């Protein structure tokens, strides 16, 4: 019996007719978009020129004009990349004012954290064991960074800085912002008017003002709202601001996911005798969150970049330690490009990786039916 698939397979198996001038065609196909029309040829030339300028500039700065030895003075004279600056300041730029002898602890914590993220990103490992993994990772990183037990000296939060602080702020912000955001999204799509209004006001107010204003509020106003004698750590205050901000944006992403779930799912789960929380937990949310994963990853990228704003309220995040390194009396005004390029490359690598992962997820979701 001949079915449609059989026909398709037969067609696939048919030998492809090789045309005699296949090579000429290939050449034609590559060249046509580049020089097909005079305008296109001009565009190609202009692009080549821009690329050439960029490559030449970067190569000259990084390699031919680079200053590989000597101190700050050598760099002041030359105008290439100043490697001695990186040599002298790399550890400070990454770890900031964390005690020098204890750098290995934060480094190890970062490796654990990034490793856990790496494992989490692989769909094959999406099961209950992840909770165990994250539980262990969180405890281990907390012990490593905080210290005070197992003979590790205690490090106060005022000395937490650099790249680990940026990771910490965005990771904790998203970890706590996520459940809060889910609750807000549920509240916003609730049938109870008072709860819906509260959620709408909260979400829209937070989304309508810049992050800086919330950071300011946390750093200037929050102490006024605390009862007398109670002080809140500066880092914790910034963290609370970031959590609240993240929650409002996550809520909107999750709401998008909730809206994508057809009514029938709610009705079917009610018909099965599940009450609200059961139907949400077992039926609706698992589907809605899956739809919301790509926008959530995009939000995460944004938040990783937005943590740089804590510089403005005086926390030493990665961008801030890089800037501090640049304004060191020995190097001030010498390594401006070096510092910013380094910071930009670090951000570029992590953000691009996350963006690529988000695109992978979107592709996977479009293909898979699981």
């Amino acid at each position, binding site marked *: 019996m001949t079915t449609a698939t059989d026909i398709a397979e037969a067609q696939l198996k048919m030998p492809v007719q090789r045309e005699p001038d296949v090579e000429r065609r290939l050449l034609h196909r590559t060249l046509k978009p580049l020089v097909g029309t005079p305008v*296109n040829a001009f565009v*190609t030339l202009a692009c080549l020129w821009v690329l050439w300028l960029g490559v030449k500039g970067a190569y000259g700065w990084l390699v031919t004009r680079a200053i590989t030895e000597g101190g700050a003075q050598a760099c002041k004279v030359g105008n290439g990349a100043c490697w001695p600056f990186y040599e002298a300041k790399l550890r400070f730029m990454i770890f900031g004012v964390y005690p020098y002898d204890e750098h290995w602890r934060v480094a190890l914590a970062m490796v654990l954290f990034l490793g856990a993220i790496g494992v989490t990103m692989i769909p094959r490992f999406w099961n209950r064991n992840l909770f165990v993994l994250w539980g262990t990772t969180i405890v281990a990183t907390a012990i490593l960074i905080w210290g005070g037990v197992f003979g590790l000296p205690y490090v106060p939060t005022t000395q937490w800085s650099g790249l680990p602080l940026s990771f910490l702020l965005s990771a904790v912000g998203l970890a706590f912002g996520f459940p809060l955001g889910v609750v807000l999204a549920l509240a916003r799509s609730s049938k109870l008017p008072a709860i819906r209004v*509260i959620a709408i006001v909260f979400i829209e107010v937070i989304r309508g003002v810049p*992050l800086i*204003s919330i950071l300011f509020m946390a750093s200037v106003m929050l102490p006024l709202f605390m009862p007398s004698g109670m002080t809140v750590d500066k880092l914790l205050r910034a963290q609370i601001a970031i959590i609240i901000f993240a929650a409002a944006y996550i809520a909107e992403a999750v709401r998008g996911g909730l809206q994508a779930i057809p009514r029938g799912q709610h009705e079917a789960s009610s018909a099965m005798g599940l009450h609200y929380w059961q139907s949400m937990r077992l039926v609706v949310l698992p589907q809605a969150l899956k739809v919301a994963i790509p926008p959530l990853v995009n939000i995460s990228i944004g938040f990783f970049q937005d943590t*740089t704003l804590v510089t403005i309220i005086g926390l030493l995040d990665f961008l801030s330690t890089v800037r501090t390194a640049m304004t060191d009396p020995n190097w001030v*005004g010498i390594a401006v490009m070096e510092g910013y390029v380094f910071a930009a490359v670090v*951000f*570029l690598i992590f953000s691009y990786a996350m963006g690529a992962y988000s695109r992978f997820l979107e592709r996977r979701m479009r293909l898979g039916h699981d």
Partner: protein
Amino acid sequence: MRVDASSGTRLLYNLRFRAILYQVLAVGSIVLLGLYLFSNVSQKLAEQNIATGFGYLSREAGFVISQSLIDYKPTHTYGRAILVGIVNTVWVSIWSVVLATVIGLFVGIARLSRNPLLAFLAFLYVEALRNVPLLLYLFLWYALIVTGLPAVREAWEILPHVFLSNSGLTVPSLVWTSAHTIILLALVLGGVLGTIVHRRATAERIRTGKVRMTWPLVVLALFLPAVLAILVVQPDLTLSIPEKGRFRLTGGSQLTPEFTALLVGLALSASAGIAEIVRSGILSVRKGQWEAARALGLRDRSTMRLVVLPQALRVIIPPLTSSYLSLFKNSSLAIAIGYPDLVMVSNTTMNQTGQAIEGIAIFMLVYLGLSIMISMFMNWYNSRVALKER
């Protein structure tokens, strides 16, 4: 569902009662939290002897604002200083939005170019801007302007009479008088008239089916008011052109390094997002639409204008709104490089008066209000281009 309010345990299972209970609990806990925070605040303020209320707005500010579009001196009030901040925020946001939209449009189309090199360059541009924090770029542009550019004495003349130096960009400018305002208003009037005439002509054409040459009439409606206004008020149309003197530039108007860095930073990073929006908008219009338009005999430009663009806009407008909104909110990063926007002026005010709550309340309200205005305008525009389902 059996409603039985007589028994206490049954009551808990009554859906309507539960709904009310939950809402009362939610509202009640928020009110209690608010009261608790309020009592803490008033106690703290009393302890620290901080005044409350908005009375300080009418007191003398006493600080200098490096640039302002409206008249401002340190002897003016705090209220006026905050107004200057608002105007500065809006000013930089408007120019950044315009610049970002233009660049974003070109880059978005370039990403779809059939020329692989151009598409690749556009891709590099977008990724480089999207994956690095805006704050870093702001610091970088500012540092490049201040340390990388020559002093005023050796200012680069990048275009005739446009000078770039470490004290910013100097451009030719008009000496603005009330006559210019009248002409501007006349131009706006001309725009309105032109639109009306054009609409009438189109309606007429559709009604009668006759194609008449109506564009001279439209052009006339566009420019007649402005020409009349020029003839009537006789304004001074000479430009103030910057000239390089021995030590400084004279004439023209100066864009400070802070403004230039903020403008460039905001516009470039928003343009990357807009490019992606434009790209996905154009991609969302199916190939069949192009082919159908061609089959109807439309030329390429008419196809773009009448068939593709209206459909692409429908996809483009909502995300474009949110990217304008985030650009507007990101303008608050001005404080990092010292452009006197709303946040920076409020911050100075808070430091001087100690009235943090009022200061933050003012700028949050202003941002919220302006955000709502922008989204209302964009929603109105969206409803015009949205799919009309009949």
